[in-house]
């Protein structure tokens, strides 16, 4: 069977139409990103995320209601893999000042209830931890254990050699879990997944991701420049920019539009970007390789004609490989589970734009450049 036998389409002749289409899509995307912004995952933004698995199915709006009552402000509540799972997310790093007294009084009550008349002293108190000091190390140990079994994250302070002080750490996740355990006594849950990222770590990851993408582009620029011609390298890298921009735009435009599709920019999505860079490059190189071959054989035929031939020759391969990879990606989107969906979606979009850009952006740029500078491309 042959899908595209002996086709002879004048791809290059239509390049201005495709420049326009790409330009419009990117412009829309950039405006959208500027207005709506991108939703970053907590690995870049910092914050806390917990996925809970309840024993019985739960009503998401009821959970939302209960979570609102805790008063932590903006806590996102979503379903997570089925009717018994929920995902809670907050950008907060610390318990807000309005809730803090509630948390502290809860701790005080707990200590006083189990140890009436205990002597204690608050050594330091901040929004992330309270340190109490007790009469001796045995009492400290005891109180620490009591608070721990009540669901607080406590330890005997590591930096006090006497062992008399107890640190109670106040975390968003702990306070959420503590409250939900109380409220869902008849439907207990287990923690499926818990992530906490400090603001500094998030910032670092963001920088690393940008460096990684930039470095990939530079390496490709150098490699293609070395193997082909410099104008080919520029064309290839512009095509890659084009792919990443369009994919990012779609992440921004479609965020929150399709239910069950979580379009946040996370570390894994950045990995998908790098993969689609690699894939799109793959396509571009195959076309370039054929162009190079034609240019070597048919030295008298104009560049535009040679390019059209090369694209027509490789078109069948481009579509077949694209299809077989696409099958895998669609299956990953459907069956790969919640965690991989955003990743697979980025690849899905990237594959389409990657295939498109290797023809209409990379090659078209090389041609446009050669025409404008009136230079002859030879190998």
């Amino acid at each position, binding site marked *: 069977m042959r899908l595209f036998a002996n086709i002879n389409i004048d791809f290059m002749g239509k390049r201005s139409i495709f420049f326009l289409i790409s330009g419009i899509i990117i412009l829309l995307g950039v405006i959208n990103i500027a207005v709506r912004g991108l939703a970053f995952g907590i690995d870049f933004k910092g914050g806390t995320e917990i996925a809970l698995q309840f024993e019985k199915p739960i009503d998401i709006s009821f959970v939302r209601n209960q979570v609102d009552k805790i008063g932590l402000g903006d806590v996102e509540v979503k379903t997570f893999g089925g009717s018994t799972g929920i995902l809670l997310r907050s950008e907060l790093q610390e318990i807000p000042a309005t809730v803090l007294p509630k948390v502290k009084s809860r701790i005080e009550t707990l200590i006083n209830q189990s140890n009436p008349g205990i002597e204690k002293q608050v050594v330091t108190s901040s929004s992330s931890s309270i340190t109490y000091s007790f009469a001796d190390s045995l009492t400290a140990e005891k109180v620490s254990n009591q608070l*721990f079994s009540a669901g607080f994250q406590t330890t005997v302070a*590591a930096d006090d050699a006497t062992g008399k002080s107890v640190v109670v*750490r106040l975390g968003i996740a702990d306070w959420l879990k503590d409250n939900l355990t109380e409220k869902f006594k008849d439907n207990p849950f*287990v923690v499926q*997944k*818990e992530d*906490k990222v400090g603001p500094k*770590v998030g910032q670092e990851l963001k920088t690393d991701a940008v460096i990684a993408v930039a470095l990939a582009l530079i390496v490709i620029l150098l490699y293609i420049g070395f193997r082909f011609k410099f104008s080919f390298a520029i064309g290839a890298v512009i095509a890659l920019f084009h792919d990443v921009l369009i994919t990012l735009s779609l992440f921004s435009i479609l965020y929150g539009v399709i239910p069950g599709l979580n379009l946040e920019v996370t570390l894994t999505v950045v990995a998908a970007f*790098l*993969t689609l860079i690699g894939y799109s490059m793959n396509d571009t190189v195959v076309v370039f390789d054929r162009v190079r071959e034609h240019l070597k054989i048919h030295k008298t035929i104009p560049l535009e004609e040679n390019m059209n031939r090369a694209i027509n020759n490789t078109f069948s391969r481009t579509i077949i490989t694209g299809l077989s990879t696409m099958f895998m990606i669609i299956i990953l989107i459907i069956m790969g589970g919640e965690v991989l969906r955003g990743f697979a979606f980025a690849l899905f979009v990237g594959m389409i734009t990657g295939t498109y850009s290797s023809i209409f952006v990379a090659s078209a740029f090389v041609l446009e450049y050669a025409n404008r500078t009136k230079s002859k491309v030879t190998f």
Partner: protein
Amino acid sequence: MMKELRFRLILILAFIGLSLYLLYPTFQDSQNSKSVSEALKPVEAMIKKNNPDLTPSKVQDMIASKKDSILSNNPDYRTAREKRIKLGLDLQGGMYLVMEVNTAKLLEKLAKDPDQQYLDILKKAEAESKDSEENVVGILARMMKEKGIRMSRYFGSIREDDARIVARLQEQETDAVTRAIEIIRNRVDQYGVSEPSIQKQGSRRIVIELPGISREEEARRLLQGRALLEFKLVKDASFAIPIMNRIDEVLAGKVTDSTATAKTDKATNKNQKLTDEQFAKEHPFFTIARLIDPQGRVADAYVKDIDRAKLSGLLAREEVKKVLPDNVEFLYDNQSITDPNGEKFYRMYMVNKEAELTGGVITDARAEIDQTTGSPEVTMQMNGDGAREWSRITGANIDKRCAVVLDGKVYTAPTIINKIPTGSSRITGSANMDEAKLLEIVLKAGALPAPVDIIAESAVGPSLGQDSISQGFNSGWIGYLVVALFMIFYYKTAGSFADLGVIMTVLLTFGVLSAFHATLTLPGIAGIVLSMGMAVDANVLIYERIREELASGKTFKAAVDAGFKVSLSAIFDSNIVTLLTGIILYQFGSGPVQGFALTLMIGIVTSLFSQLVLVRVIFDYINSKGYKINVG
């Protein structure tokens, strides 16, 4: 031609064979895991029956941790376990933490007479450090300079300049990290996490991976708690051995009135005549805990690593508790020794339960080389209270041994040679400088100079991991079926060869993962699924070319040759580019993303091998027989 073909065929078979060999432990481990699960079913039923109020997930947790401990401790299962493809935290569940020394707290503590002005500057420096790459020490030094205050006002002596003080403070920061790592390593070992990873990152960070931990609160507590350094007296042989004999008798089921010493002689006499089996029956305790000195001058014993759990079970028995005085306990060395057969042993000591002194009194410790003997030693200083106590303890226990115990593990047990009146002590006997350095860290661990905060963490429950694995593998084989059918439909016979190539790609990819002891993560599985789709690319390129060449009127053989040859440059260039992005991804990614980059890179190399070598061999073989292949 045939000879060359045979060589390639052997190469292919060798790779397949090697992959299967490397993957066998993984297969074995999953079989073991199944049989252990089966064996634990009655246990699970019993737990459920005895504790009806436990939630099913709690029961699952208990069973899972039991299973894990059986699989990693039983020697029959352990080898397979160690050689299998490791699963990342996102697949098997577990915890990942990044901890950082709280330098601001450290600076607060180290400063001499910190006044309000100092604390204010420190607070500002800390706030600034939150969104800056510069570290707190540097920022503090800069701010002080801006205000015209010299660092020597709060640190060191008057004559030192700022640069020197900053350097020393940074050194102390690094020191705190090193100590924290030692404490954490020690505890994680004790907690019994299989295959933990604890690494230093940069100058102030520690990255910890704890696979299979289901109670994350407890783990977190374990990592952040106070380290307890104690000095405990080791019991003399004359005291310990009779007790050990009694334990041995009780365990063997014979309780006699004969004196313990007499029993020892008898036991040693009998020793020669007894077979191993009989000895094991008559001396259950000494079979497990082998005395280091057969003459019985020291009561230390060697215990096999795998026997430790059994021994603590035996010691917990009621009848044993009756003969073991409640003011003593058995402690193990922090490090194991390995005998020529590869068996791991731990040295076990009988010590006083009550510590003579705790580590809070130590003000300094230092590993040095003794000027006269040239051997490494560790010196330590104590504060006034500590020195007074130490003087009394050492004076009363000359020629006895005193164990240095950190969080319940013995690091060394030197003999007290004389009374130490000033607290300034020398510990000799370290085998090398590394060991001495470790002891220095341990001695200082009792008082960690600054808290170590968790700055990022990620925990995945075992059930989510299990779901991810099955989702990943289902996508894999369903995807394969779709692509395989498509290839056969489009390229007919030649398509089915490409499909064989994909199977080989996957097999080799897993083989390589196994050879590198790499970790498989969920994005890693996605990488394999993706490379299955992309693996056919090389073949598509070649087949399209063969079709073109055939259309231009070449013979089948010439078309095949040209197809493989001409496509090579495109295949090479495009894959190199993907490989380069893979390398970058691996460099900059962390955890799961690295797993993805790794499988992607391995997938590229193995798919090239499968598609270019395997498929070519099939083509050449059929060609040499004079048949043609349908390329659709």
